[in-house]
């Protein structure tokens, strides 16, 4: 939730051209639909599966599009506007396509005092992204700063998609990235 006069954080994603125009193929069919229906049985309301449904959507498409939100809204009996309100509240749903590898570097104070800003620099340089929130020209990487990842004793924690890496230093960044090509 970036807002107000200090909205200077690095978490804002910058939309990249392309991708957006592809027509939306429904996600909730077959096994995915069955998985969603099973989830619904765990709660007294349908709406309670909104966060899980958005996760499934993002897993299938790499990001959460407006058409995808509309599909979820129809399934759960809520409005697309309501779904968008929820999507924009949470930082982990991508409202634009991102690089093949989405890299989140923790820079909150506990990691900051251990040199996390240098880790960010190393990622921006080695990936060629240059700037936070921008996807590299080859579409491979997007780097953002993230607020506390909850692994402060293993500074600096970094997430690459769903991989959770610990104790990353500027020196280990090139070796790590070699695993994500």
């Amino acid at each position: 939730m970036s807002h107000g006069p200090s909205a200077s954080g690095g978490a804002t994603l910058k939309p990249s051209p392309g991708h957006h125009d592809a027509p939306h193929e429904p996600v909730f069919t077959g096994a995915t639909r069955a998985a969603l229906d099973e989830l619904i049985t765990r709660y007294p309301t349908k709406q309670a599966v909104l966060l899980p449904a958005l996760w499934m959507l993002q897993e299938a498409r790499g990001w959460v599009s407006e058409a995808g939100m509309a599909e979820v809204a129809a399934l759960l009996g809520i409005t697309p506007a309501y779904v968008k309100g929820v999507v924009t509240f949470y930082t982990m749903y991508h409202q634009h396509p991102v690089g093949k590898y989405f890299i989140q570097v923790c820079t909150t104070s506990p990691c900051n005092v251990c040199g996390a800003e240098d880790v960010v620099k190393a990622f921006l340089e080695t990936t060629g992204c240059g700037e936070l929130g921008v996807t590299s020209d080859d579409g491979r990487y997007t780097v953002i700063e993230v607020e506390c990842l909850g692994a402060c004793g293993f500074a600096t924690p970094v997430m690459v998609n769903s991989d959770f890496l610990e104790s990353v230093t500027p020196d280990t960044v090139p070796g790590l990235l070699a695993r994500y090509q």
Partner: protein
Amino acid sequence: MGYPHQPHPRESLVLSKHFGTPEARTLDGWKKRGGYQALEMALGMDPVAIQNVVKESGLRGRGGAGFPTGLKWSFMKIGDGKPHYLCCNADESEPGTFKDREIMRWTPHALIEGVAIGAYAIGAETAYIYIRGEFTEPIERMEAALVEARAAGIIGPNAMGTGKTVNVWVHKGAGAYICGEETALMNSIEGKRGNPRIKPPFPAVAGLFGMPTTINNVETLAAVPHILVNGAEWYKKLGRPDNPKSTGTKLWSVCGNIVRPGNYEVEMGFPFGEFLHEVCGGALPGRTLKAIIPGGSSVPIITLEEAERGLMDYEGMVAVGTMLGSAGCIVIDSAQSMPKQIARLARFYAHESCAQCTQCREGTAWTTKILERMVAGDGTAEDFDTLLEIAENMTGKTICVLSDSCATPVISGIQKFRHEFEALITRTTVHAVPVVVA
């Protein structure tokens, strides 16, 4: 994924005894270590009797507020004909805190057992473990353990063959610190924006899906099986004899500029100075410790001297001007700029404000903007008064305490490290002429 450090001889291992032992993650491995005896015992007890044991033990909430757990459970009216819910708060996002993550990574069955006992004790047939979305490994570990526990009939519609229903589900968050606030957490499970709710009504009256609900932290629930098996008297003896208000052991997450960061489990009331210097190895070579934030970023910053006088329990931390909080201890040394780190904390809160209260939405943002300007060398002498006035207006005036949490490091930081801020100002504006910022 990282392994924990070797335990220090002065630690008291109860919750963390099996951290680092992969076998303890499996159902068989957990049972070999005494797992699920407490649940079996609990399901044969009257729920109120369980509440009373926990009350008697003195266990208090480990998420930050320190509310007595048994008392909280007793607010749930058993047999009122309504569905009850237990929410386990595993949204661990308080900067400096990473203890619940280790409980879930290494001993997932310990948490399931605690959750199942807690649910039964409050008359709930359904419990949700709300885990922050970034915790991919803890989510995997918990899901795998839940599959095992369901398959073995330990939880589910006929838990341990008793005919009692205890369903436990994981609910994955999606990136929002505020969802660790209990009413925001409930909104998030309901598929809403994670805005905190106005209290009253309190969750025990109208909580998740409008029904009576209890929210407990991971570490709190993980302690419950030990209390049931070993007894309230055993638990009460852990801690300093002159302070019966803080009982048991506490997991401390230690991070920042210290030789051996990691999770440590010590009895309540352990001497903080010895803990920092001896157990955690003290300052890095060639550096000295300067500031300690002992309970996660939302508690007042204290100096090393104050910390060295402190005792590590709820009252001991208050006595040195801070709070135990979530026991996420951030250590800051002489090589760091306090204004820079305080500005960084303010930015954290500005980013995480849900923005529904004006004081918080505007206050966190303006605090950040002013602090970042000071750090950039464009501060003025008036900034101190402005920051403190904003902080005053952010304290005790909002729906939840995120706003207060942003004001806390600003107030304590200026109070204790004002010279560092002043050094930034005199460097550029000798006579403190106000600078107009667009």
